[in-house]
């Protein structure tokens, strides 16, 4: 198992290098292919009606006047050995891994990512707990009560949940619960260490909104998996042996159903940890997703690269955890 984990981590490093290169290419080469000049790119970081001298100064400061491979080399050197950042008034050391400084805010990207990550983690983790409990429970019950009102109602609701986009359900819940009916008062996010009650309060609506979509999906998946597993011979054998129904369902049927659920959960959680973009923007939360959107909209390359690499890392780590859990859930699986 240790060898397996180490191999996966080394693969993750290679993946991050590739992703950073692709991100650089997208940022610089695609606009050029569309006819954008370096001056036009620099103008995005200047004020109203910038003159040529201002554009040249900005190009020099951000390295736009260098070839793209040279800029990429400078970036990777910073990641590996660290670099320096010139604020004009002073030069700051940026220890490795240095992801550079934001073109817009002049803050270190690594620190910004670390500051924003807890918000996204809070949203993703809390929603994950809710959707797993709700989704799997409803899926199991629906499977056991196939064809009943409960089954039809829950699957119908699940279909609605899967179909409605998050920004719609989020805005809807906020508009009615908070603004029109006044039965909920959204609070600003604070860290859990600062005020756990306000932390949770600020996340309830985002959790419910996000979980509604995913719980629906997981309920349908669980139901389908359970229906399939419950027809297996070994389930019939377990019942014939006189095992309590609860044991048959939980220890045998559900356990077998969980394997594909785990796969999808790893992917979903990993992607969410990289930034629950729509949820964060809908509820004005300052996580990695909002940071990514701002970076893209404002052509803030260091932020875009930093968030993309962080997101990729979370996906890889989440899938690694899922793969390890396979061996726990399914004794037939051996990690090689």
């Amino acid at each position: 198992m240790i060898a397996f984990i180490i191999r996966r981590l080394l693969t993750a490093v290679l993946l991050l290098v590739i992703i950073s290169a692709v991100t650089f290419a997208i940022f610089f080469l695609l606009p050029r292919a569309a006819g954008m000049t370096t001056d036009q790119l620099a103008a995005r970081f200047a004020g109203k009606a910038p003159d040529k001298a201002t554009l040249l100064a900005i190009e020099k400061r951000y390295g736009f006047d260098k070839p793209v491979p040279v800029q990429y080399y400078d970036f990777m050197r910073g990641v590996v050995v660290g670099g320096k950042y010139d604020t004009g008034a002073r030069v700051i050391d940026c220890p490795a891994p240095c992801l550079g400084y934001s073109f817009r805010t002049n803050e270190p990207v690594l620190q910004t990512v670390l500051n924003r990550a807890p918000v996204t983690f809070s949203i993703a983790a809390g929603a994950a707990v809710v959707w797993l409990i709700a989704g799997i429970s409803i899926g199991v019950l629906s499977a056991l009560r196939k064809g009943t009102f409960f089954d039809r109602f829950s699957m119908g609701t699940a279909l609605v949940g899967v179909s409605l986009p998050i920004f719609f359900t989020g805005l809807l819940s906020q508009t009615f619960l908070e603004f029109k009916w006044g039965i909920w008062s959204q609070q600003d996010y604070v860290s859990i260490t600062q005020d756990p009650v306000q932390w949770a309060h600020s996340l309830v609506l985002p959790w419910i909104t996000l979980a509604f979509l995913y719980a629906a999906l997981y309920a349908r998946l669980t139901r389908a998996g359970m229906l399939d597993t419950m027809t297996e011979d070994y389930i019939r054998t377990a019942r014939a042996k006189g095992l309590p129904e609860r044991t048959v369902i939980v220890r045998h049927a559900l356990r077998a159903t969980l394997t594909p659920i785990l796969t999808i959960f790893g992917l979903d959680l990993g992607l969410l940890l990289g930034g629950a973009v729509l949820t964060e923007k809908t509820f004005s939360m300052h996580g990695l997703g909002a940071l990514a959107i701002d970076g893209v909209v404002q052509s803030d390359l260091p932020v875009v690269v930093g968030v993309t690499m962080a997101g990729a890392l979370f996906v890889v780590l989440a899938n690694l955890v899922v793969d390890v859990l396979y061996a726990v859930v399914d004794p037939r699986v051996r990690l090689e």
Partner: protein
Amino acid sequence: MKRQVWAVITVIALVSTGAAACGGGSKKTTGTSSGGSSSAKYNAAVDSVVNASDTKGGTLTFGNSDDFDSTDGGNTYYAYSLNFNRLYERPLTTYAPKTGAAGLQAVPDLAQGLGTPSNGMRTWTFKLRPNLKYEDGTPIKAADVKYAIARTFDRGILGNGPSYFAHLCVDAATYKGPYKDKNINDFKCVDAPDDTTVVIKFKDPFPDMNLLVAFPQTAPVPQAKDTGAQYALHPISSGPYKWQGNFQPKVGGTLVRNTNWDPASDPIRKALPEKIVYKAGMQENEIDQELINGTLDVDIAGTGVKTAARQQILSNAKLKANADDPVAGFHWFLPINTQIVTNVNCRKAMIDGVDRDAMWRAYGGDIGGQLATSIMPPAVAGRQPSNIFPVKAGDTGDQAKAKADLQACNKPNGFSATMIYRSDRDKEKAVAQAVQQSLAKVGIQLSLKGYPSGGYTGSNAGSPDFMKKNNVAIATYGWAADWPTGYGYLEPLTDGAAIVNSGNSNVEMLNDPAINQLWKQVVTVADENQRNAIYNQIDQKVLEQAAIMPNVYAKSLLYRSPKLTNVFFQEQWGMYDYTALGKTQ
């Protein structure tokens, strides 16, 4: 049967829920949060102070769907940022905290009086108020104002703010800023012969200096505390408030009282709130709804509520009593490219034939804007309306006159060209379509092309090469004055000398010798009224050339929370004056 019963029940439930949701207002409509006060009425804050008070205390909360371009006074250009910046920085002058035209006048701020001109208005001397201190108790000196202006010359580090000093100073061509040239004495534009005297020297006469120094580029910066590009994380306060810890870009920050600010030295600011909270990155609908519900005090952008909230406010008498719809300072006009449409009569045909009513409605009709006559909007001091292209409500264009103009320019069947607009602005797209459709009736065929607003003023409308290469005859555009004089508004738009290769604001490429000469002449005139007469003359001449198609002076539907005190619309900022605001407890 069972299924049908359940289907009916489901439909009834859904309809009931929808009816409950759509009808009626918020349950949070208590008297103080969304009901008007007995003194509040629609547009009350446009020409008077609403809820005048000197009561201190409370926390004032500002929300923003975006963020400041910078909290560093030397690196900011957004109007709301310039307005808000005065809470923690003091430039040499600022704008009078008054309604109407009185708010367009400069008043001394850090300086104890307006500047004294000499050398034919090339040199201006300011005396600072005595015994001023920063937030840490260290004294503010004239050398700090010199340094503040000098650092703005490094456009690579501080490229967001205006570049007037970097262009107009005596050593504009040679000085590179203190980050590259470590000897501040090499900066000849500004002298600080003693701790309270600031002398600014321009190459050419500049009568508007008292207004130019209202930019926070003149707010003092202690050189020892300057962190260059990162100064925005904690600008050192010279005003009544200071940042608590560091400002968090894209997230927000809190301003708390600066105990080293002397109220006796500051006739401008009331500094009533105990604390000011600023939140960035809020969702637009959330800002409007929180304003209405009273959980947010100010939408800092000051450009008005969005469409959904606009309807909600205008259809509710109590909410409408807390709203103002002033003319905000922008003129959304359409420059006509004189290099493509070279004959003045062809350009006149475009202006005479266009459907002004449809263009006005595209901006929201009476709520969104006022039909424009002159190029300069009402927020420019001394501006006069024009009769060259008279317009009234319902004006859908004079096709007969347009056809006569086309005859005069030897194009009786019209001509073809391109029109560009900002593709992510629905109003501009609607304007472009109105122009296209109305001019097609007289034979002027325009093909429309939309471009993202991010690069529009730099690389599309603002690029003479682009305009020529793409045969762009007309473009949607807009302008608000950097300072409220004819020079501050019109010069970048109409002076041939202002044409540049990128970020060009003279989009119509007007290079008229008579107009250029007027620009050279006006800066030598000491009398303000005489200068205003020349500005109006230039405005008229540009219209006679039909180089600019007037459109709409923008209006903003602002909502003022009933909890706010001292609310009034300030003409120069085009929004409420943020330094005056207080809050009831």
